[in-house]
């Protein structure tokens, strides 16, 4: 490790309603791989976005190569030598490798693009990194691993001095990870500063020199990778004081009947042999880090995506779910994490959305019975305390919390007994949040069974009767609320085999 190349001091950033970064400090040396760790929403990405000029900081300072800097946009940061290799690759699949690497700064001869020259330059970059990629290959034909190598080559071509890797191994195979680590070590040997964001504990020991842990937007500690243990890191990640009382005891009797049983469910990379049971009146929390496969599991159960194999039993009977239609017939309702895309027709009214899943029950012969429709809509507006001037209001005009209530009412109108809430409080303000919690508890008390997918640890501990934990498509843990703690959940959520 050499001298310090980058220092971030007292970085503060507030978004409406959220204190995203609370006076965060961070330091990076030349020839160092520095891990940045924390739960979802701890502020890692926000910090990197402030660094590269995507967000403007409210206060604090960034000192880069001895000078205070403030980048207006990622392009400025790039030309100064700070680049991010994103988790989701920003590549154009129809262009060649070389064209992708030089996009926006094509090598020209006169007014024409000089592809031959770009291919030569790309080849030189790959040689520098010791990787074998044909610059004239179409990007779409490469594996994810190779595409990532191209991103790295692109970063190098900007004469980067600081490279940020945002969960680089999430989509890679074992051998691709090996190769990536070799490249990272090479870069380190060339005195570059590397910031490494990852959820994988074992990689931290393997590749990084220091670890900085963040929690709830604040700096927690910086540890030396060699001398710290996994427990130290987990403890630092979750060691928050929880203000909201976690649930102490499950409300569900031990002998409550099983309403939903999923056995050996498989669907793509992120749903790999998942089995679990859901009991009547239970809130079953699904915990895990981003990309653990929880949403994918829910969508496979609901028939939104096709499953490869696995059996689903509702009330003890094997059901064939091939489409959302089948799922709804079996009494399953799914509330997506992305309400606007998957939950609502926002240009339509509250009433039209509320009866969308059960319209056939509100017919008078061939015609929709508007009176009955308005009645039932109003009934749920009252019971869920949805704030809307009328049943004819367009959903687009409601706030996030009230839109969520409209989605809930859609499934209640349908009278679903099994409800899957995917991130039920995402993008909802604090007041509406506790109303949604209250609502879920009420529903469970009435005998509805709820699967609640949540990335927020306090939410999981506050709401769940039992918790299933997933990591990279597999179920890695299951515990009753009585046995659960932040540490035990985080351990299971980072458990790779």
């Amino acid at each position, binding site marked *: 490790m050499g001298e310090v190349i980058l220092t971030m001091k007292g970085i503060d950033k507030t978004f409406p309603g959220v204190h995203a970064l609370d006076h965060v400090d961070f330091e990076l040396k030349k020839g160092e791989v520095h891990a940045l760790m924390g739960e979802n929403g701890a502020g890692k990405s926000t910090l990197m976005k402030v660094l590269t000029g995507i967000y403007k900081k409210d206060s604090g300072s960034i000192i880069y190569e001895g000078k205070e800097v403030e980048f207006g946009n990622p392009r400025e940061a790039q030309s100064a030598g700070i680049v991010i290799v994103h988790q989701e690759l920003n590549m154009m699949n129809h262009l060649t490798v070389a064209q992708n690497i030089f996009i926006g700064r094509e090598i020209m001869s006169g007014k024409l693009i000089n592809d031959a020259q770009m291919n030569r330059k790309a080849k030189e970059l790959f040689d520098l990194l010791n990787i074998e990629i044909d610059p004239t290959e179409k990007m779409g034909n490469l594996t994810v691993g190779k595409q990532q190598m191209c991103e790295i080559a692109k970063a190098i071509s900007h004469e980067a001095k600081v490279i940020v890797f945002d969960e680089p191994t999430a989509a890679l195979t074992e051998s691709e990870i090996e190769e990536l680590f070799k490249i990272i070590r090479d870069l380190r040997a060339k005195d570059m500063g590397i910031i490494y964001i990852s959820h994988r504990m074992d990689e931290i020991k393997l590749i990084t020199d220091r670890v900085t842990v963040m929690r709830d937007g604040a700096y927690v500690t910086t540890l030396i990778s060699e001398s710290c243990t996994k427990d130290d890191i987990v403890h630092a990640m979750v060691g928050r004081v929880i203000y909201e009382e976690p649930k102490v005891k499950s409300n569900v009797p031990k002998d409550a009947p099983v309403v939903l049983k999923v056995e050996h469910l498989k669907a793509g990379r992120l749903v790999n042999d998942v089995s679990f049971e859901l009991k009547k009146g239970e809130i079953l929390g699904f915990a895990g880090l981003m990309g653990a496969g929880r949403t994918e599991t829910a969508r496979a159960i609901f028939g939104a995506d096709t499953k490869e194999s696995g059996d689903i039993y509702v009330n003890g009977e094997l059901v064939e779910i091939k*489409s959302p*239609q089948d799922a709804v017939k079996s009494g399953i309702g799914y509330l*997506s994490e992305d309400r606007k895309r998957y939950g609502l027709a926002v240009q339509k009214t509250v009433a039209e959305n509320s009866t969308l899943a059960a319209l056939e029950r509100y017919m008078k012969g061939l015609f*929709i019975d508007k009176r009955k429709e308005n009645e039932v809509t109003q009934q749920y507006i009252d019971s869920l305390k949805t704030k809307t001037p009328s049943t004819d209001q367009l959903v687009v005009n409601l706030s996030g919390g009230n839109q969520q209530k409209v989605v809930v009412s859609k499934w209640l109108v*349908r009278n679903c007994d099994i409800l899957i809430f995917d991130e039920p409080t995402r993008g909802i303000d604090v007041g509406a949040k506790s109303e949604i919690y209250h609502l879920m508890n009420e529903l469970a008390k009435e005998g509805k069974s709820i699967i609640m997918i949540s990335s927020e640890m306090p939410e999981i501990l506050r709401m769940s009767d039992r918790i299933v934990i997933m990591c990279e498509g597999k179920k890695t843990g299951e515990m009753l609320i009585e046995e659960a703690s932040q540490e035990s959940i985080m351990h299971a959520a980072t458990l790779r085999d």
Partner: protein
Amino acid sequence: MERIKSNAFVKKIGFNRLVLFLVLLLMYTIFAILEPTFLSYNRILSALNYAYFLGFLSLGVTFVIATGGIDFSIGPVMFCAALISGQMLTKMNVPMVICLISAVLVGSAFGVINGYLVAFWKMPSFITSMASMMLARGIGSVFTKTQSISWPQSSQENGWFRIFVKYTIPGTTMALPTGLVFLLIIAIICAIILNKTRIGRYILCLGSNKEAVRLSGVNVKKWEMLAYIICGTLAGIAAIVFVGAYSTVQPGLGDTYNNDAIAGCVMGGTSMSGGVASIGGTFIGVMIISLLQEGILAMGFQKDWQYVITGLVVLFAVYADVRSRARKN
């Protein structure tokens, strides 16, 4: 302005539709001042001839556009239906009733094909309907061996079918616009389907957010396909009133009517991105285009001025739609 907008009657009809209707009246007044023959009954009947077939086309395509799709095949499908049924009537001596039913069924068949490809095979409606437009044009020509077909006049045998367009009181020259009544009845049925039944509800909702409707457990493919079938069927009906008004169909034509039909629909406030549609608006839009067509001809301008004006009006209508959406987000 706000007071007018919040008036109960205006709200019920829709402010935009009211404005559109005033535009229609204004246009008629201007034409009548510039060209007094516009006050004559025959001139009005002649303008209506254009409105009949265009009305059916436009009503049909309203359903497709409400789903967020488009159908460029309706004009040629109408011609194809008229040619096939006309050939059956004049060359094969098939009874008139069966010919008329066949015309409608030809339209429906194209609707089934378009709808199936778009809804079940997820083919883009733009390309699908372009392809079926060529199919319709080709099949019509092949079936009649590129001969134009003349349907019987009202005085001739089998001429009774013209009652769908106009009825001349026996012994007088007085003609009643029965076509307008026919069109109005179908328009009212369409409005009921769109606003009061599950068909319309699902079509509008899936035009607004198809994935959300699918995830609500609705069979979106079925309802989306149905929109195309309604559209095709109405194009088949349009064939009947077209020959009722103009007697002769030539193979290889019909494309230009697509544009007029879609223009009428968009002018009436149906959003090209789907989810919002108005049958009343479509009806008035069709009247405006028909009046424009007749007016420009009557005043001795070159016919193509109609396209210039219609083009500008459509641009304005789409611009207004995009603007109002941008404001909402």
